[in-house]
């Protein structure tokens, strides 16, 4: 495990530049120049992997960030005679600032509007470079002095190649850590399921801004390290066309892969050199290659390569419930919560209106700590709205919510996570492209942007905390009977198993209150019984309080200690389940007047 992690982290950042240097030693000056540009394209591709493949933001501003990096570094070299390494870092800062400036307003948009805003940024940067003639030399460009490191001028092509490779390795290592560690995982999670990501404290805007800033910094530095070899930089070499071409890197390389952008960058930068006899057609060939990749090999080059590898023995697929373990007691890795007299959840005259409809109309609900409390009611009764106000997805119009004695009415989801509250979803909100283990680790909820960056470093160094998280995730998966599918993508599980996975993700952080939204809707009768046993075991062994919204009355009656019935936004009955469901007014809500007629 540890060995493969280190290999995965270092193979590209160390291996590829080393290979390029080796090839450069054997090749002529022209190919050294090409390899120099290629290693820069690899870094650009890796930066785009973060933004395009992981965060799924379409950017047409790559050229602008390259320009910011190259011009930033070169201007500082010329005007302040900054040593080259510092100039590269400064170029990266220029890119990061540009990324921040673009992302703060832009991340509220998605898809075509985001693409268009990045196109605007691209055009404005290039216009600025052309117009600020005094500083940038306008359309003629700037001639770049030779790089100096520790007083030594780097002039030959081989020296330039070695320098570019060393800098690329230094940029790629942290980039790979971020991509493969918790930060990249959370980014992928939010791109496939924003709702699920929010429920575990992933702030979408923060992550997208961070992705923009980090990838722009990498792209800017990639351009800065080859600027001396280019000798002249001008606005045209960073135009919209270059943005579109670089957008092809992660797509051709493979959107699903950590290495996709880097591989795509290497291949697409070398390809034109190989095809020099038909150089005129190269742009048309490239756009055709991208379209063909999207139509025929959605996984791109990296998936084609991984298919060539001998297939690893896949763990047995879960079959529908038959081999799933029914859990009667959880392994005691954790101490159950002990409950003082405090109430887990109190809502006081809670109101939520949608235009003319009052979905939740003055609900007073009390859930004792340690209880299994159910809420039933016909469609449109306001159950889900109530549930969303309690879990922090919707802010109520009036009333108060207290969790374990703390008023959280106007707090964000993250504060609720801090109090030990987690939830599951009626329409599953798992992250299908991530493995089951990764899904569960997100359930720890330590997903603020700072925490994720810190955890990425911890993950790379394999710290004790990081190892413990993996162990706890394995425990949670084992507890719900999914130990045999830990490394499978969550999207490959059956519906019932996906429900178990959501439960594992909800319990891994040892929550004090779990909110379950229709946990058995759409699963088979056999699986309903297994989930019943599992939920009771979690309640008993972890001491977790549960609030369950469900339509399946039989399931609720067997599971819950107390039951509330909602209709038209109000609670109309409350008490011991068997008694509540026998009440005449409850029957009337569900079945109409038929029992009186009989």
């Amino acid at each position, binding site marked *: 495990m540890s060995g493969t992690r280190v290999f995965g982290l270092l193979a590209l950042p160390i291996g590829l530049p080393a290979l390029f240097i080796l090839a450069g030693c054997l090749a002529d000056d022209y190919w050294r120049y090409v390899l120099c540009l290629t290693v820069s394209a690899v870094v650009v591709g890796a930066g785009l992997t973060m933004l395009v493949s992981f965060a*799924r933001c*379409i950017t*047409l501003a790559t050229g602008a960030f390259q320009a910011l990096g190259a011009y930033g570094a070169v201007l500082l070299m010329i005007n302040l005679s900054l040593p080259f390494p510092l100039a590269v870092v400064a170029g990266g800062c220029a890119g990061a600032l540009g990324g921040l400036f673009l992302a703060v*307003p832009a991340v*509220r*948009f*998605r*898809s*075509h*509007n985001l*693409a*268009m*805003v990045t*196109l*605007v940024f691209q*055009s*404005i940067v290039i*216009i600025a470079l*052309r*117009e600020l003639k005094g500083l940038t030399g306008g359309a003629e460009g700037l001639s770049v002095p030779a790089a100096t490191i520790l007083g030594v001028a780097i002039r030959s092509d081989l020296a330039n190649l070695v320098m570019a490779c060393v800098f690329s390795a230094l940029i790629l290592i942290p980039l790979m850590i971020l991509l493969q560690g918790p930060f990249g995982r959370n980014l992928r999670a939010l791109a496939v399921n924003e709702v699920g990501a929010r429920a575990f404290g992933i702030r979408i805007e923060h992550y997208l801004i961070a992705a923009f800033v980090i990838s722009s910094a990498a792209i800017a530095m990639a351009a800065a390290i080859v600027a001396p070899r280019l000798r002249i930089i001008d606005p045209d070499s960073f135009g*919209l066309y270059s943005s*579109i071409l670089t*957008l*092809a890197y992660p*797509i051709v390389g493979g959107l699903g892969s950590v290495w996709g952008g880097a591989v795509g960058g290497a291949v697409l930068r070398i390809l034109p050199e190989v095809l020099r006899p038909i150089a*005129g*057609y190269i*742009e*048309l060939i490239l*756009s*055709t290659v*991208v*379209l063909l990749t*999207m*139509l025929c090999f*959605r996984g791109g080059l990296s998936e084609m390569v991984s298919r060539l590898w001998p297939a690893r023995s896949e763990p047995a697929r879960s079959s529908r419930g038959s081999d799933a373990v029914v859990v009667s007691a959880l392994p005691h890795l954790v101490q159950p919560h002990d409950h003082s007299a405090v109430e887990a959840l109190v809502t006081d005259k809670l109101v939520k209106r*949608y235009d003319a409809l009052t979905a939740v109309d003055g609900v007073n609900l009390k859930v004792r700590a340690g209880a299994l409390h159910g809420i039933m009611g016909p469609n449109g009764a306001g159950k889900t709205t109530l549930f969303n106000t309690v879990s922090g997805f919707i802010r109520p119009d009036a009333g108060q919510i207290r969790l374990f004695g703390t008023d959280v009415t106007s707090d964000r989801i993250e504060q609720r996570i801090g109090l030990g509250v987690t939830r599951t979803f009626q329409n599953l909100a798992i992250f299908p492209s991530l493995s089951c283990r990764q899904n569960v680790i997100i359930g720890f909820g330590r997903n603020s942007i700072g925490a994720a960056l810190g955890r990425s470093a911890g993950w790379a160094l394999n710290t004790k905390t990081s190892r413990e998280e993996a162990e706890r995730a394995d425990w949670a998966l084992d507890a719900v009977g999914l130990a045999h599918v830990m490394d499978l993508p969550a999207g490959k599980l059956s519906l019932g198993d996906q429900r178990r996975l959501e439960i594992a993700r909800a319990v891994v952080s040892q929550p004090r209150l779990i909110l379950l939204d229709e946990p058995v809707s759409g699963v088979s009768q056999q699986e309903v019984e297994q989930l019943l046993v599992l939920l009771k075991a979690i309640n008993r062994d972890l001491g977790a309080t549960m609030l369950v919204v469900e339509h399946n009355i039989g399931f609720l009656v067997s599971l819950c200690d107390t039951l509330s019935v909602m209709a038209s936004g109000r609670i109309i009955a409350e008490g011991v389940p068997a008694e509540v469901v026998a009440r005449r007014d409850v029957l009337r809500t569900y079945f109409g007047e038929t029992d009186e007629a009989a």
Partner: protein
Amino acid sequence: MAELLMTIVGGIKIGAIYALAAIGLVVIHKATKTVNFAHGGLVMLGAFATYEMVVVFEWPYWMAYIAVPVLIGALGALLEFVVLKPLRRADLFTVIIGTIFLGTALSEAYRLAENSELLAVPALFTGPPLLIDVGSDVVIFTREQIWVTLGALAVGTAGVAIFRYSSLGRSMRAMASNSRGAQLCGYSVEGVYGIAWFLGSALAGLAGVFAAPSKGVSPDLAVSIVASAFVAAVIGGFDSLGGAIVGGLLLGCVETLSAAYVSSSLSMAISYFLLFCVLLVRPEGLFPEAKRRHV
């Protein structure tokens, strides 16, 4: 005063072309939920086809107005069938990337064929300009300006009317708001998507015919038109056809005025700034089509 008026008239003419391109973009988006970044490529090909017909084959000009929209419309429907149909189940992200590279392929293919020269197309009307006295000054309109403005706006309005009132338009609107439901009611996805792309691309082709004399034909036309059409559509609210017309005219005036009174190199930056402001302040556009629903 006269100078300002003439600038505005010029702006309205360019704006009418933008409006026509924007309507095509909006029609395709309304019916198929696809943002067609290849739209500029279609406009460029429309202008190029006009050049071929009028200059190379020396056909009468009116034939270009009839043949080009049909040709570009058919090409659009074909591209939809070959490239976008297989992506129909994919997400928006994939489709947008698809149309971006489709657009690049179109302009690169053209660049290869024509070596990126700027091809000049003569104007339809070459008669003497009309002079109108405004107080002490004289305002000069060219016949071309009047023809392009009125012609493009008339075609655009006709396109809007088709979408809004005909049964063809109803089928597209039904497909857009609920494709499952529309299929249950007997509309075929293939048919509706094909018609929407035909109609949208035909409008793009016509925009190309109108634009050819004033803008010339070059690969750069593709990017400049798709950007302008997009800005016009966003200003109008992206799903509003009437909004696209107003947005196009507004954009044309802003561009021409800033080129005349500020700097021609900054006119693009200023129109982008306009887009940015609209997106930031009123993301639903100046003429939102419908109130946003609660999720």
